[in-house]
């Protein structure tokens, strides 16, 4: 039993060391940094009233708003993986050469804020109006429409938002969750939310 004791002590020391280091490391994920948009572009940011939330957009799609045209600026792979229903794929590079002459309401979204705003500038110089943009991207669509979540101890503002979100969510086959604990400093990228949503659902 003497050697067992020695082995056990060594195992315990290894486990404790790795555990203390884990405590210091905090997160098992490598740090990701958020991309900053260039100051020039930020100064050209279009009127805030043209900014559209994903919930409003979802309501427009549900209500079949006449002349609604949704453009997805991301890459073909990203579009293939997931896109907002009824959206058309127009890569940013081809945007200036596409035919958008028919009247209607145009809504634009890209992979991130920067790409979306660039698209808005292109369409503005082409004189396309009315023009709206969704700068929250597909991640927010998945988060708010497909997985609308009401965090614990919600403010009245969050409650109202959740109610309108879960109404449209039902139309798009989303699943509402309530009383979810808050997590701070956690930035969900589109990929993360997508993988979470599609995580292989194998049984135990």
């Amino acid at each position, binding site marked *: 039993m003497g050697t067992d004791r020695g082995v*056990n002590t060594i*195992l*315990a020391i290894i*486990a*404790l060391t*790795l*555990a*203390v280091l*884990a*405590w*210091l*490391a*905090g*997160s*098992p*994920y*490598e740090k990701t940094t958020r991309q900053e948009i260039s100051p020039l572009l930020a100064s050209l940011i279009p009127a805030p009233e043209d900014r559209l939330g994903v919930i409003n957009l979802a309501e427009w799609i549900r209500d079949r708003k006449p002349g609604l045209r949704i453009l997805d600026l991301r890459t073909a792979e990203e579009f293939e993986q997931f896109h907002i229903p009824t959206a058309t794929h127009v890569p940013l590079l081809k945007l200036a050469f596409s035919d958008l002459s028919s009247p209607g309401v145009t809504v634009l979204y890209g992979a991130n804020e920067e790409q979306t705003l660039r698209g808005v500038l292109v369409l503005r110089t082409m004189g396309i109006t009315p023009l709206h943009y969704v700068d929250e991207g597909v991640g927010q669509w998945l988060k708010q429409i497909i997985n609308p979540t009401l965090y614990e101890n919600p403010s009245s503002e969050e409650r109202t938002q959740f109610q309108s979100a879960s109404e449209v969510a039902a139309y798009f086959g989303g699943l509402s*969750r309530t009383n*979810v*604990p*808050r*997590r*701070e400093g956690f930035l969900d990228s589109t990929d*993360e939310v997508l*993988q*979470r949503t599609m*995580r*292989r659902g*194998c049984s*135990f």
Partner: protein
Amino acid sequence: MNAPWLGIGILSVDQSLALALVIGLGFGWFLERGGLGNARKLAGQFYLTDMTVLKVMFSAIITTMLGLFWLSRLGFIDLTLVYLPPTFLLPQLLGGLVFGFGFVMGGLCPGTSCVAAASGRIDGMMLLVGMLFGIFVFNEIYPLISGFYGSTPLGQITLAEQFNLPHGLVVFAIVAMGLMAFLVAEHLESRHGS
């Protein structure tokens, strides 16, 4: 990110089935070597005379948990591609209670009963037959209880997310808890003189 291999397409499904056999082989081997094919040894856990179940199970959890944490931190495995069992509060609470009752009654759990049966123990084989019957009963009454089965879902959520604590702190807390439990277990066993 080099793993999981199946998730990122390095392994085919057929290869993963062959691996399942090898992985199971290792699992069964260590269960048998740890003495967990013996129902009396397992039942001893509930009478505080033999703490083998606690020792094997908790050290396995600690090993895997630390391994996953550090492999992910070092960028070797993508944890978001690893299956995380979803949480359904009430069904899992009740299921755990029912399971625990059956555990102390039968003295083996589903995995260890396979090892017990394989090493020639007739009680292990009998327990396997009983388990198949229990699953059959559950399946037959499933349409009546499907509402409860799907109730109180929290989604795929970890303790760290649930209690809004840093992941690493939860890992540390579980390891600390385990090591303390091991000390208590050694003390109990030496007191019992086994």
